[in-house]
């Protein structure tokens, strides 16, 4: 007997639903083929995950702080003193 799998809502999944092995919704093309067909401002549909992988992470990355002390820190750590010489 075939193994029963379940949908997210808990109902049993119908037999034959889903993607068949080898059936791919995505295909590989050269970027030059696409740029030949579209103008720079034409909207195109792409995979959300692919977009996020490519662009969003770059936006989210915060620049690493340099390890060197800032000028303000350096001033703050200066000890204030005064030397008096007597004649």
């Amino acid at each position, binding site marked *: 007997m075939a193994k029963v799998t379940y949908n997210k809502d808990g109902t049993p999944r119908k037999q034959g639903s889903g993607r068949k092995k080898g059936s791919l919704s995505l295909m590989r093309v050269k970027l030059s083929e696409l740029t030949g067909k579209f103008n720079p401002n034409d909207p195109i549909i792409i995979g959300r995950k692919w977009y996020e992988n490519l662009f969003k992470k770059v936006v989210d990355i915060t620049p690493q702080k340099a390890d060197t002390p800032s000028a303000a820190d350096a001033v*703050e*750590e*200066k*000890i*204030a*003193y*005064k*030397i*008096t*010489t*007597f*004649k």
Partner: protein
Amino acid sequence: MEIPFAELFGQINVKKRLNFYLKAFDKTSLCPFLLLVGAKGLGKTEFARQFGGNLKNMDGKNRPFLEMNCSTIKNLEGFFDQIFIPLIMDSEITVLFDEAHELPKDVTNAFLTIFNTERGHTRDFRWRDGQYPFDFKQQTFLFATTEPDKLFPPLKDRLTTVDFEDYLPSELAQILESQVEGIAFEDKALLEVAKTSRGNARDCVKVAKEIQIWCAANDTNIFRLKDFEQFTDDLGINPLGVSHIEKKLLSILRKDGQASLQELCAKTGLSRTAIQRDVELYLMKKSLIKIDGKRHITKEGSDYIDKFSPPKIKDVKKKIK
């Protein structure tokens, strides 16, 4: 400087002790690690400077005097790198640590070892990979603080405390007169002005500057008692140097007879700490109020308010009726 501290007024006991240490230094080139303790404006730093100015190097020349505010010392590394190695090590110098209660913990701990009261005048302090030599015949260390209770007790134990006292009105009058050039004072006026300085020499110097300006503005070089009244009126100075918030508190007590600290907070808008620390202390010192659980105005306080507070309009109207 021929006579030590000749330019400074008052602080007789401090002068005596410091003169003793100067004499001892002349013979031994050693001075105890002195801790000058007193309220703000009593002249701790000035006395330390003059003391330093009277210490001589081995070759008879005057010793330079290095003073630093301890709140700017952030750690031991900074102290050794910026101060000890370039300025103190192998030099003959007097060093004053002002506001010593602000010393950071690691510096305080190092000082426990360095200023330990063991025999000998040299100390080699080892820290990390370095060795820092101290020679107390070459280097004299002084400390000053307004808050000795905040100083780490073991460090305080290693220092010799010299206590500063409040100035008497007559001493303040001398300070005041010395700070004002080209103006003659009526004796009574001088004493009255001195009383507004709250026993504080620094305040006295500030008042002296204001008198100088006031006299210039009024084209006079004689300051009389009647001028004092006009002067205090112009500058909003209350007799005895009582501040406006202190006077407000006195007025509240004069009206209500007594009040709790909570009531005074509500009526003045000040916090409990501010009233206790900044307002009540001086009023108690001048016997204008007393505290026994509740705050009471004394007879002196009542007299003060009756004499120096202008009557309210409705009171004047009542009298007229």
